[in-house]
């Protein structure tokens, strides 16, 4: 290993903060004018009315005020409400909308997470209908939710999504529902009238929602299963919006604990129903609907936290640079004047970490959004695709799926090879196979969604604390520019709602062992080595080594047992599965960051506006990738080592001292093999007494493959701190605007 002295070379530097030209390429919407416009319009709302509300202290009340309500109109006018809708229902974006929603959420959360949540919650209310609703339900509620156009005379509806119930009922575990649906009246030949009893807790949009998609269990033997029903304001019975939640966060969204006791026609069951032997059989249980809804909306939440970190960069730099200006001894042109706190290495290094995390989170989130855009059309045709290939639904699908899993893995392997080196005919056959494509994309989406939600929000919240700390005392005041302390607190909600971290970890611990996902993961290891060959400073090799260590550890844990002989990788052993899930997220985030940097490198030269600054951006982003890959490597090392060794019993002097030398033996052996003494880790003293320690040191028999990988990974950190130094230097050189483009 070469440890030669490497000076931090001067080269192209970061000229300005990355603007739209850069982001459009990295986040892959340079060709999408609809999305570029959406970004601009969402930004204008965020940095205009939203920022003014926050600056005016609108967050200081739990009540839903007219000022907060005015934001809804701003969302409508700016096209944010219509993002979710199909063009025939009043929308303007054709096709899947995950990337669009992700971008809108990022822009709004750049200023305020509550505003973003308020804008997105309407979509959440519609999502069950969008995913599983009948055509009639879609037509009705989507059109009603479209903003009113000039000349139209109708009221615009807004929706809410009610799953969570008062304690002790449904929260993280979506299974235990207390809300019930029963048959109220069922006259022969007519549509049944249902009665719904549901109490909600923490329901967003509830101060004004005209309809609610509510999860309820069956409370009647004439209804087969749980389902989701649409409740409307004006239905006979009680539609009580309840009291506002006393939130410490996201105060620009409305959250209430509502109470519903309503009679509704059975046609309100989302997705419809059939009648079998005098029993109403909902076409979808509440669980099926919720799974398909959260799968998509959680990605958006992850992007909200990434936005906070990226938005923190500019205010922190401005604060640091100006920290000592205006003092008596202040001299313009001196480092103290120009750089202020940026003269201090630690302040810079921490900001590099914050920025790197924000980049990785955004890259991961947008990757997930794009994957869902690919998956959506297939997912909506899933029943047809399964029928075409004779795959039964439910448990019986498992066996039928085995051979298709093999084909999907084969496809993944072929797709990763250059065209010249693979069986092209077979590749094309599999590429044209809808079921194979569905399985590959679905396996990836099932990992990416919880990964984004978990890592972006959880680790993001920790890093927001770092950002706040860089602002000193200012950081914990309402006056802090960029609303950083509010964002720190808001991040915690983002980590909680729509399923807190534990739910994401649980999901990952299942989906990350899927063979089709793991095949993709293995190919990424090879991909990262190739990347490293061409872009040595990007940290791709570090990442590849960390990925190998993680994969080895997963495979080991799937088979391994603990000291008591109990299997380790089991659903209830969250101490095993959860940390491994966390570690995977670091790897995925880092990989997505590197691929976005490569995208910029490859496509940036096509944009003449970037010609001046591209080299600097690439240099900086490459260093950030390296920094982040090293952080990921550190996490993975720590987690893997503790899992691989942490469940083993420590050797003891009583049972494992057999292989330990005693002092007399060593003297004799030293005469034969000089130097041996220094290699012997453990030795009994002359009276065969054990040294004062826990037992003989752990031996690594059988763990050589792990140690090899771990040792290699340590070495792979070479240069990563130099990358950090380099990125830190660029932070002192970057030109930032004179002031923030939203009020404080």
């Amino acid at each position, binding site marked *: 290993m070469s440890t030669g002295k490497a000076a931090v070379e001067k080269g192209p530097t970061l000229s300005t903060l990355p603007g739209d030209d850069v982001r459009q390429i990295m986040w892959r919407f340079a060709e999408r004018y609809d999305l570029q416009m959406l970004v601009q*319009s969402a930004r204008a709302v965020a940095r205009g009315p939203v920022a003014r509300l926050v600056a005016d202290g609108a967050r200081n009340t739990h009540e839903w005020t007219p000022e907060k309500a005015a934001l809804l109109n701003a969302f409508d006018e700016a096209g944010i409400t219509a993002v979710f809708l199909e063009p025939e229902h009043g929308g303007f974006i054709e096709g899947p909308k995950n990337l669009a929603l992700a971008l809108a959420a990022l822009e709004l959360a750049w200023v305020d997470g509550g505003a973003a949540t308020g804008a997105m919650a309407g979509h959440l209310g519609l999502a069950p209908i969008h995913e599983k609703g009948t055509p009639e339900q879609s037509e009705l509620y989507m059109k009603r939710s479209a903003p009113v156009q000039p000349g139209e005379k109708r009221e615009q509806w807004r929706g809410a999504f009610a799953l969570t119930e008062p304690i002790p009922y449904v929260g993280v575990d979506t299974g235990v529902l207390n809300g019930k649906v029963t048959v109220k009246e069922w006259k022969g030949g007519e549509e049944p009238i249902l009665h719904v009893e549901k109490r909600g807790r923490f329901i967003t949009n509830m101060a004004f929602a005209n309809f609610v998609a509510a999860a309820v269990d069956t409370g009647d033997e004439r209804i087969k299963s749980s389902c989701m029903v649409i409740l409307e304001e004006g239905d006979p019975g009680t539609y009580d919006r309840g009291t506002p939640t006393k939130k410490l966060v996201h105060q620009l969204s409305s959250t209430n604990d509502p109470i519903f006791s309503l009679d509704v026609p059975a046609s309100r069951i989302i997705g419809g129903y059939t009648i079998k032997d005098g029993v109403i059989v909902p076409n979808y249980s509440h669980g099926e609907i919720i799974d398909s809804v959260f799968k998509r909306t959680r990605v958006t939440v992850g992007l909200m936290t990434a936005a906070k970190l990226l938005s923190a960069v500019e205010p922190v730099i401005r604060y640091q640079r100006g920290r000592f200006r205006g003092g008596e001894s202040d001299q313009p042109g001196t480092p103290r004047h120009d750089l202020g706190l940026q003269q201090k290495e630690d302040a810079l290094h921490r900001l590099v970490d914050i920025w790197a995390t924000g980049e990785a989170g955004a890259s991961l989130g947008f990757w997930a959004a794009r994957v869902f855009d690919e998956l959506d059309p297939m997912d909506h045709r899933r029943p047809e695709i399964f029928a075409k290939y004779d795959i039964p639904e439910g448990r019986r699908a498992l066996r039928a799926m085995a051979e298709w899993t093999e084909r999907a893995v084969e496809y993944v392997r072929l797709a990763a090879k250059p065209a010249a080196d693979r069986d092209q005919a077979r590749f094309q056959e599999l590429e044209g196979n809808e079921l194979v494509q569905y399985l590959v994309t679905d396996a990836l989406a099932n990992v990416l969604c919880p990964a984004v939600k978990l890592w972006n929000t959880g680790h993001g919240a920790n890093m927001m604390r770092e950002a706040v700390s860089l602002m000193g005392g200012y950081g914990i005041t309402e006056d802090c520019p960029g609303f950083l302390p509010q964002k720190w607190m808001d991040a915690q909600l983002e980590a909680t709602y729509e399923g807190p971290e534990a739910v994401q970890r649980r999901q990952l611990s299942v989906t990350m062992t899927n063979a089709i996902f793991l095949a993709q993961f293995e190919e990424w290891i090879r991909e990262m080595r190739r990347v490293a060959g061409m872009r040595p400073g990007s940290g791709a090799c570090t990442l590849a080594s960390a990925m190998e260590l993680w994969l080895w550890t997963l495979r080991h844990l799937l088979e391994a047992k603990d000291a008591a002989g109990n299997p380790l990788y089991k659903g209830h052993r969250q101490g095993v599965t959860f940390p491994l899930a966390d570690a995977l997220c670091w790897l995925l985030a880092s990989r997505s960051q590197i691929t976005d940097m490569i995208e910029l490198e490859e496509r940036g030269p096509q944009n003449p506006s970037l010609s001046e600054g591209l080299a600097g951006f690439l240099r900086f982003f490459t260093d950030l990738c390296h920094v982040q890959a090293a952080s990921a490597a550190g996490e993975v090392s720590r987690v893997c080592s503790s899992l691989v060794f942490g469940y083993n019993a420590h050797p003891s002097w009583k049972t494992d001292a057999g292989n330990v030398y005693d002092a007399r033996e060593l003297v004799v052996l030293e005469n034969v093999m000089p130097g041996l003494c220094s290699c012997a880790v453990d030795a009994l003293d002359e009276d065969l007494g054990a040294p004062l320690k826990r037992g003989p040191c752990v031996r690594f028999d059988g763990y050589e493959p792990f140690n090899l990988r771990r040792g290699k990974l340590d070495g792979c950190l070479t240069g990563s701190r130099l990358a950090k130094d380099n990125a830190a230097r660029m932070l002192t050189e970057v030109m930032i605007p004179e002031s923030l483009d939203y009020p404080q």
Partner: protein
Amino acid sequence: MTSGFHIVVCGSLVPDPLQTLEPVQGPGGPGLKNEMMLPSVLDPWAAHALYEAAHLAKQTPDSRVWLVSLGPKARLQQLMMSIAQKAAFQLVAVDGSASGFTDCYDVAAVLAEAIEGIEGLDRSRLLLFGGRSSASRDAGVTMQMVGERLGISEQFLAVDKLEARSDGSLRVLERVEGGRYLASVCDGPPLVCAWSTGELPEPPNNPQIGMQNMRAIMPALQKARTVQVGAAGTDYRSVEVPRQRRDTRVVKMRRSTKSPARSSSGSGAEHGESPLPSTHTRRRHVTQSGPGSLDRRSPGLGGGERWEL
């Protein structure tokens, strides 16, 4: 009036005024540090002109609006992602420098040529709009030169209001010194209006309008002619960036039911439109509509606001 206006708005991009603007001498002449990397906005006065144009076109059936922009093509495209959502217009793009250091004479020539080339433009119905000056150059002469090149001698500068009247005439309020307006009436188009802030707020973004506009904007960008405009032969002795703190002061005054107070000194204590001291009449450009052209009858701008420069 039987047919609507053909409104051509001249406007291009300037660096976002919140950015750090640092003049530097580069190999290709003077410019701003990292100029190509700075986010840009539509030149603010020209933006007001565009919003006024879109509004007027909406009110006047059979009207059309073109935005003529000279700027780097890729940057113009980026700018359109926000501007195209705010108003309906057709873009006429010319690919060239939008730097604040280009010579206004050259810029005016390019703009006039581009306008002459607009297909379907009826010059007898032309309202030529632009900003009173560019935020990046602040010369305040480009629109007049474009007008001259197009043979339009009715020119109004620092306009805040243009009213299309039922008899086809146009009444224009221009800012003059002392917080007052010069009111003029013109028989009809063609005329040049270099706008101040106008009276309209910035329209909200609406991506639906944007998507409609983009269908024509992308082809317009693709066929943009490339031109050379620069500062060759110009020697800049000194360059000043705009001060962060502007001198404009908006003073809210209580709305009065009485007619506007008139100060005999003309010191600017009046609000709204007021009789002009005789020294201001030399700035009249409008002579066609006879004695009524200096309109002293109608009430002021309403709103009870006056501005001070």
